[in-house]
């Protein structure tokens, strides 16, 4: 569409501007009318883990809708052969699948899980907050800044277009010279920094802030999976940071690392990228373990083997990256090695699946919404696992590689695993976030529509892939013999879209109609159900003493209160501060300066970011706390 002053702009970008403007005005009026500014300010300056976790999840839901719309555009374009849907052909299609993938991985799945960790982990282990509350706020705002940078690209008609992997040499300036992939780099760098900080925070919290008596061997499995996941983040994310750093030099400062050696980029990317998919799935495993144990009214079966399985998956996760590169030509030895390590991962995963089944066996089942999502997960994820083992066969992979078979496989694991886990977790811990219990009936509608829609969407894609349909193509012909699969797939995608409207309806209804629930609406087993809903600041005063696994459950069973621990360790210090959000804003400006090569802006924002460190140095909340101690 030709616009005065700005020139030729695609109509979807214009539609997005208009829609956002309208929604912005509506939101503004709503906030004004309801006088919500103090609440917003409260959240903007908080360092409390529950509030930050809630914000993570809220933002993820918004990004989920945004990336889900991309998915619907993709499905519309692919619904029928030789289609010409709206503008989504050629490079526009490249942009839409790039944003869909990148958003879903980095700005939906990751922050969903990190949000749940924020809410649940401290409560599960009896910590009064995360170890570094201030750093936690920084992490969140950095994640949001990264997400906004990434999203801005679309509004500036410069969405990244080199795929979520940003493979070189396509992503170097010789082939994609515009600002598009700069947005990708800086969006990921800023949010990645936040993720690394969160991982550090989680590890320190789990290692040092557990309630007295809560040994590692008594820790709930979600906390265990958080610990292992955080360790994976610590090793994997710096590699991505470095890869993108080198790519930045290629794009900005005239080096040619990845122009000369594109395969090196692939190695670096997947040394990050494969652990990344375990970073996404392990927390979901943890959620399912806790949920299934709770609603089967049984201790989780094979606790020790569950922990060992998580650890082994985490370890093997670093030894399989080249299975993404079977067709690159690394040679038979390398392919064999990586094929075998990949297949080995099926063993600990299988152990986990059987343990879940044995937990359910002879349990007293309550099929609530979180449990329903867990039950739906088991067969779905097994299917994704089976196709995973198929793909691990290096020789066969030459046929599957870059086809819709792969697309179907990773959606079965990422949606069927991570996203179902996230939904289970949200329904399960919603009382701890907001104090309310989501409506069960609407929750079940959500589940059934989502799962049916999911299988309708992705099951046919296996066959489309086996029929030879490649990934990342915007159309196909009637003779390609994939039309039937694609049209079913499109119908399923819309069913999933509709199911998400039930989530909105549910949240609206719950907050309009129901009162707060008590501390323990699910008859829980672990420490988070001993504290009020929503979780207050410093919930563990007095500090409980833990004497067994699932302490709350066995306490209830024996009709006794949890013992009180004497002289617990001092709690982390909460503050109210706007520094984190301002710092994130400064880094956002810095990134924009880089995206558009505005050196004055880079210098100013860079100096600004350093000034923040100085400001922080002199306003440390520990000054006051240590002084009090000194005076005592």
């Amino acid at each position, binding site marked *: 569409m030709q616009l005065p002053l700005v020139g030729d702009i695609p109509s979807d970008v214009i539609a997005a501007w208009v829609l956002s403007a309208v929604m912005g005005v509506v939101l503004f009026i709503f906030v004004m009318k309801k006088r919500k500014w103090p609440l917003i300010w409260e959240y903007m300056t908080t360092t409390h883990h529950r509030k930050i976790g809630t914000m993570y999840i809220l933002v993820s839901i918004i990004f989920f809708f945004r990336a889900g719309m991309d998915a619907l555009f993709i499905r519309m374009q692919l619904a029928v052969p030789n289609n010409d849907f709206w503008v989504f052909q050629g490079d526009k299609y490249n942009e839409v699948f790039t944003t869909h993938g990148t958003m879903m991985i980095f700005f939906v799945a990751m922050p969903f899980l990190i949000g749940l960790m924020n809410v649940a982990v401290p409560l599960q282990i009896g910590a009064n907050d995360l170890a570094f509350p201030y750093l936690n706020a920084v992490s969140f705002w950095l994640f949001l800044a990264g997400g906004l940078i990434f999203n801005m690209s679309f509004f500036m008609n410069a969405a990244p277009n080199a795929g979520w992997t940003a493979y070189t040499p396509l992503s170097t300036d010789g082939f994609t010279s515009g600002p598009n992939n700069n947005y990708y780099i800086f969006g990921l760098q800023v949010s990645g920094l936040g993720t*690394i900080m969160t991982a550090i925070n989680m*590890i320190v919290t789990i*290692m040092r802030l557990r309630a007295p008596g809560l040994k590692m061997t008594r820790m709930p499995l979600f906390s265990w999976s958080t610990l292992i996941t955080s360790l994976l983040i*610590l090793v994997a994310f*710096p590699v991505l940071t470095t890869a993108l750093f080198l790519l930045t*030099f290629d794009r900005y400062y005239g080096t040619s*690392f990845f122009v000369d050696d594109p395969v090196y980029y692939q190695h670096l990317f997947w040394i990050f990228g494969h652990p990344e998919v375990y970073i996404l799935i392990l927390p979901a495993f943890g959620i399912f373990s806790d949920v299934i144990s709770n609603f089967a009214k049984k201790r989780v079966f094979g606790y020790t083997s569950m922990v060992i399985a998580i650890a082994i998956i985490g370890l093997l996760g670093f030894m399989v990256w080249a299975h993404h590169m079977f067709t690159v030509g690394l040679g038979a030895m390398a392919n064999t090695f990586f094929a075998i390590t990949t297949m080995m991962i099926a063993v600990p995963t299988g152990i986990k699946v059987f343990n879940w089944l044995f937990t359910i066996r002879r349990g007293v089942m309550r099929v609530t919404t979180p449990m329903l999502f867990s039950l739906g997960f088991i067969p779905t994820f097994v299917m994704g696992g089976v196709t995973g083992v198929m793909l691990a066969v290096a020789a066969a992979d030459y046929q599957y590689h870059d086809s819709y078979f792969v697309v179907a496989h990773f959606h079965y694991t990422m949606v069927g695993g991570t996203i179902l886990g996230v939904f289970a977790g949200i329904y399960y811990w919603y009382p701890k976030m907001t104090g309310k219990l989501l409506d069960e009936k609407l929750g079940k509608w959500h589940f059934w529509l989502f799962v049916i829609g999911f299988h309708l969407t992705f099951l046919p894609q296996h066959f489309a892939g086996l029929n030879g349909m490649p990934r990342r193509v915007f159309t196909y012909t009637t003779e390609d013999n994939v039309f039937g699969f694609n049209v079913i797939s499109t119908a399923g995608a819309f069913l999933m879209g509709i199911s998400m409207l039930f989530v909105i309806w549910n949240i609206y209804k719950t907050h309009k109609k129901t009162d707060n629930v008590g501390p323990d609406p699910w008859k829980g087993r672990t420490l988070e159900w001993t504290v009020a809903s929503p979780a207050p600041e410093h919930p563990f005063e007095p500090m409980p003493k833990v004497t067994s696994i699932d302490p709350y459950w066995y306490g209830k069973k024996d009709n006794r209160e949890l013992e009180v621990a004497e002289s617990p360790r001092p709690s982390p210090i909460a503050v109210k501060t706007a520094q984190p959000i301002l710092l994130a804003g400064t880094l956002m400006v810095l990134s924009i300066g880089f995206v558009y090569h505005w050196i004055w802006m880079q210098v100013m924002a860079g100096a600004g970011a350093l000034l923040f460190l100085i400001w922080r*140095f002199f306003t440390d909340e520990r*000054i006051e*706390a240590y002084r009090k101690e000194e005076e005592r």
Partner: protein
Amino acid sequence: MSQSTSEALFKDKRLGFFLYLGVEATMFATLFATYIIYTPAPEGPAPESVYEARTVILASIFLLSSSGTLLVAESGLKDWTLWKIWTGIGITFLFGAIFMGLEVHEFYKYAHEGYTIGANNFLGSFYVLVGLHASHVLFGLCWMSLLMVQLKKNAIPRALFIEKHKIFNYYWHFVDVIWVLIIIIVYTPFLI
């Protein structure tokens, strides 16, 4: 209370900072790998003709001994001997600054001889790796000056100053270890 606030929170921070140094180590490890892969490059300048032993040796002497002088400050922290702390940080800062000057000189000289970052991938990986290390030193210098300001103003509790100083010490020693690896991996194979 079984544990004082400052003691517990210091241990939290120390563990967190060690984990952070692990992150840094992974980044440097990746850059070392990059350097090893691309050096020597098939065409363009060779490392033997670029490197100059004198600057490297001088820079190493100053940076490595600055880790030693920092130990003086550390021992001063134990019984709060102010002159030791001041001497320790002061000399460390001075040595760090001299190292920084030598680095700038080295980069400037190389670039002037035509050995720029884009000349080939060997030089590209050299500049990214050694440049990232140099920027860590620069960051450390700024950090040290903030520490000195706080020591001078005496505005924060002693326990907090000791905490901040110790965390800085870990950082500085880490940066030194990276420099040792740079000497071993980057320079030595092409200077002997």
